[in-house]
């Protein structure tokens, strides 16, 4: 790949932005993400019907000109529910993953860079948490905090964080042994500086990949939580809970599972494309090719 020469004096952020916008797929992904965010925000204006309006005369009707995505088991318009559901699902997906990143990455870096008993403690707790069943944590939190979407996001963030701990730790361990970190250490840089400026940039690619994958898992996890009394409560829609109630009608009314499933797929795809673009844009070596 031949990148145009970069003019000196441009800030790294500008260069990164430029690199990002050169990446067509990434831009496409960004457009889709922005579109979904807009859909979520503007749901009251876009949705053709009230997502909660039931009608006992049009139950589980297949897609038609009137109802593009068909109607659900209570005669509600599936398209409107997908549009409104974007709110809960995007929040559950994005915010909980951000939370997991903020909890997991610093701890993982600490463990990998400092080592010794700090590593021991953090790694043991992460191991222990990975083996705690999600369900137990979810039920306990549901009772403790009460039913709300924010609490579901908290539960997802907590359970997703050990993966980021492990990932950051593994990459930090590897980066620690590289020449440039050793050089930085020899020059007397404190560990936090090494972590922030020398190690973090190098572990961004796998973190981005994991984060954009985790969004999909978080969206689906929100559904099982709403089922347990945490997360979106009926009749308010979320893509995950729509999938959940569609499970009873997989064969009789396939559009009930396909439509929210498709929405999840498109959003996850878009986030991953953006993640790929970011990865390239932030890679300090990308220009030197």
């Amino acid at each position, binding site marked *: 790949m031949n990148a145009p020469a970069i003019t000196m004096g441009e800030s790294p952020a500008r260069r990164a932005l430029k690199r990002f916008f050169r990446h067509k*797929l990434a831009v496409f992904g960004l457009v889709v993400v922005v579109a979904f965010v807009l859909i979520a925000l503007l749901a009251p204006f876009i949705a053709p019907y009230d997502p909660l309006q039931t009608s006992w005369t049009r139950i589980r009707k297949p897609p038609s000109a009137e109802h593009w995505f068909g109607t659900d088991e209570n005669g509600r318009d599936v398209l409107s529910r997908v549009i409104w559901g974007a709110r809960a699902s995007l929040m559950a997906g994005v915010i909980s993953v951000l939370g997991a990143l903020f909890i997991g990455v610093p701890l993982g870096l600490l463990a990998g860079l400092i*080592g010794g008993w700090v590593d*021991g403690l953090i*790694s*043991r*707790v992460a*191991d*222990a948490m*990975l*083996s*705690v*069943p*999600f*369900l*137990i*944590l979810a*039920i*306990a*939190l549901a*009772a*403790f905090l009460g039913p709300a979407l924010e609490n579901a996001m908290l539960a997802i963030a907590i359970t997703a964080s*050990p*993966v980021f701990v*492990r*990932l950051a730790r*593994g*990459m930090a*361990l*590897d980066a*620690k*042994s590289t020449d440039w970190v050793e050089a930085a250490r020899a020059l007397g840089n404190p560990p936090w500086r090494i972590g922030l400026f020398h190690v973090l940039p190098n572990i961004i*690619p*796998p973190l*981005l*990949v*994991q984060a*954009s*994958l985790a969004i*999909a*898992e978080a969206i*689906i996890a929100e559904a099982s939580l709403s089922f347990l009394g945490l997360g979106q409560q009926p009749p308010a829609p979320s893509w995950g809970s729509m*999938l959940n109630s569609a*499970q009873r009608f*997989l*064969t009789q009314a396939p559009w009930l*599972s396909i439509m929210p*499933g498709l929405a*999840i*797929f498109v959003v*996850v*795809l878009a986030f*991953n494309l953006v993640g*790929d673009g970011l*990865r*390239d844009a932030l*890679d300090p*070596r*990308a220009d*030197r*090719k």
Partner: protein
Amino acid sequence: MWVWLLRRIGQVLPTLFILSILIFGLQQLMPGDPALILAGEERGDPQVLAQIRAELRLDRPIHEQYLYWIGNVLTGDFGFSWRIRMPVSQLILDKLPVTAQLAAMSFIIAVLIGVPAGILSAVKRDQPADWAANAVALFGISTPNFWLGIMMILFFSVELGWLPPSGYVPLTEDFWQSIATTIMPAFVLGTGVASVLMRHTRAAMLTALSQDYVRTARAKGLRERMVVWKHALRNALIPVVTLGAIEFGRLLAGAVLTEQVFTIPGFGKLIVDAVFNRDYPVVQGVVLATALIFVLLSLVADLLYMAINPRLRQA
């Protein structure tokens, strides 16, 4: 090396200790009186409830319950299931082969699909092969397991009649029949993990391919394939190893929906049913067993790091 290994094994105990406290604490936070649910439809009788509480020591303070349990565990007694009265150790031993077989098969499928697809899409970056691999991988992760599972059952079992729709036959009983009962769930689980491995392999390969030494190697005129395999792949494997260990561990205990759909009860289903029935000895025992496996897996991952990155060995 041996000292290091011994030290790592020594760390298993603290993990299990932290975990046991965590589980006990969470159980306290969980609503749902075990006595009420255990009494089933006899819950209307206060005498029955009092009796259950006394028998299961639920009327004792929590620390006393914990000490009693941990004391027994240290002597190798995991207690018995409150619900079906089977020893927890027997339940674990019953389900371990199922779970291990399913996890191993899924993992093999995941590695066989995920790693080559990741390498391919990194090498053929921004070409149709890359796009196709990405689309398939992301489809794999955003498709709910229950959906894929039921679709496979409807197609392969009901339509074609090739595979049994559910149930489990042990490997020792009938090899082919055992593979037949596990291939569909292993595939469903494997595709999800394959997506994760594919995306990470791809990203790591891309990073590795842009590293100095790979470019140096290329400049030195080494054949492209050699470069890819020898240098890039080795570095690309680090996140794959980390994620592989975690995902393998998740396959052991987190395959609940798939186990449920295919009625192949392993650890996942055992834990979920135990949680819903508040069958705490089973929860505690199985979680402890999974934790042990998790810790061993993370040990293996650390060993693999060292094999991949020789410089770590000195550290």
